C-alpha cells in the first residue's frame, strides 16, 4: 500500500511512503530554501556551527514531540480551536526544551538566549502541524517531522559553518585557518547573516534549476 497515492490513508501499519515523507524535508521541500520559513533563528544563532546544530536539534525535538501529540489527537481536536491548541502544545514542548538546555548545556543556552523560546513562533512547526500532522497518521507525521527538522538543522549547520569559518577561522571550535587569516568580521554581524543566506538560497535555486 503506497501512502503517496493516498496521503490521508490511515491504515498504515507498514508504510512504504514514509521514506518519501522523510526525504522531502531534506531537499525538495526544505523548510528554509524552498518554503522560506523559520528565518529568524536561522539568521540569529548561526554565528558558529555548534549553535546552529543545537538550535536545529532543539527545533527537531519540539517538532517531533508536537507532531506525535497532535497527530495522535487529530481526531478529537475541534477545527475551530485547532490553531490555539497547536500553539499551546508547541509552547509546552518549547518550555521543556528550554529548561532541558538550561539544565544540561548552560553555555549553549546562554548563547542561544531568547531564540530558544522563539521556537514557539517558528513558522515551520506550526506550518507542519497545520498542513500535515493534523491530517495524517502518527508514523507519517513523525517521518515528516524528522525530515523537516533534519533539513532545517542541515541548513543551520551549513550557514553556521560558513559564518564561523570566515568570521573566526574555526569550524566547531577547531582552528582551521592559521594566524595569517584576516577574520571577516562582517560574518559575525547581522549583515553577514542576511547576505550569506541570500547567496545560499540563490545557489540552491541554481542547482535545482540545473537538475
Amino acid at each position, binding site marked *: 500500500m503506497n501512502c503517496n497515492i493516498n496521503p490521508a490513508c490511515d491504515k498504515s501499519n507498514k508504510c512504504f511512503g514514509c521514506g518519501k515523507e522523510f526525504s522531502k524535508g531534506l531537499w525538495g521541500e526544505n523548510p528554509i530554501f524552498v518554503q522560506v520559513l523559520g*528565518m*529568524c533563528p536561522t539568521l540569529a544563532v548561526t554565528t558558529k556551527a555548534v549553535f546552529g546544530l543545537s538550535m536545529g536539534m532543539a527545533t527537531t525535538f519540539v517538532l517531533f514531540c508536537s507532531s506525535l501529540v497532535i497527530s495522535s489527537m487529530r481526531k478529537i481536536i475541534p477545527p475551530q480551536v485547532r490553531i490555539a491548541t497547536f500553539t499551546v502544545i508547541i509552547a509546552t514542548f518549547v518550555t521543556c526544551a528550554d529548561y532541558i538546555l538550561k539544565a544540561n548545556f548552560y553555555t549553549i543556552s546562554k548563547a542561544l538566549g531568547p531564540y530558544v523560546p522563539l521556537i514557539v513562533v517558528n513558522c515551520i512547526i506550526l506550518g507542519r502541524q497545520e498542513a500535515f500532522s493534523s491530517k495524517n497518521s502518527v508514523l507519517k507525521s513523525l517521518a515528516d517531522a524528522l525530515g523537516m527538522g533534519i533539513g532545517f538543522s542541515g541548513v543551520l549547520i551549513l550557514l553556521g559553518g560558513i559564518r564561523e569559518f570566515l568570521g573566526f577561522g574555526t569550524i566547531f571550535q577547531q582552528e582551521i585557518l592559521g594566524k595569517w587569516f584576516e577574520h571577516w568580521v562582517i560574518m559575525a554581524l*547581522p549583515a553577514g547573516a542576511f547576505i550569506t*543566506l*541570500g547567496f545560499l*538560497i*540563490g545557489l540552491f535555486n541554481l542547482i535545482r534549476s540545473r537538475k
Partner: protein
Amino acid sequence: MVNLVLIFLAASITHNIVLTYFLGVCPFIGVSKKIEQAVGMGLATTFVMTVAAIVTWLIYHFILIRFGLPFLQYVSFIIVIASLVQIVEMFIRKFSPPLYRALGIYLPLITTNCAILGLTLFMVLRDYDFFESVVFGLGSGAGFTLALIIMAGIREELECCDIPKPLEGAGITLIIAGILALTFMGFSGLISN
C-alpha cells in the same frame, strides 16, 4: 524621561528589531513588495506590539510572579498575543473593510511574527518597568515599520531591474536586507550604552 527616549531610539534605529535582532524577518520578506501594504502591515503590527507589551507586562508581574509561575511565561504570552491578533482582525474587518482586504492573509500571520513574542521576552529579560515596556513596544513597532517601508521602496524600484534568476525573490531580498543592516550599523554611535 531621557531613558524612555533612549529606549525608543534604540529599539527603532540603532538596534532595529529586524535588522539587528532578526525578529520579524518572515513578514519582512513576505509583505515588503508594495509600500501601501508595508505601511498597513507595519501600523497593525505596531498596534499589536504596544498592546501586547502592556498586557504581557501586567500578566507577568501581577499573575505569574505573584503566584510563582514563571515557567508559564511562554504559554501565557503566546495565548495573549494570539487573542490580541484575533481582536485586531475583527476590529479592522468591521471598521475598515478595504484595509482588511488589502492585508488579507497577513493579519493572522502577525501572531507568528517573532517580533511580538520576541519583544515581550526581551522586556522580561531586561526587566523593564511599565513605561519602559510601553515605549519599547512603540519603538520596536516603529523600527519594524521603518524597515518594512524602506525595503518596500527598494523592491518597487527593483521591479524593472534585471535580477539573476536564482536570486529572484527571497535571495535578493535577503542580500538587500544585509546591506540595509550594514547601513543601520552606522547609527550605532548615536547611543553610547
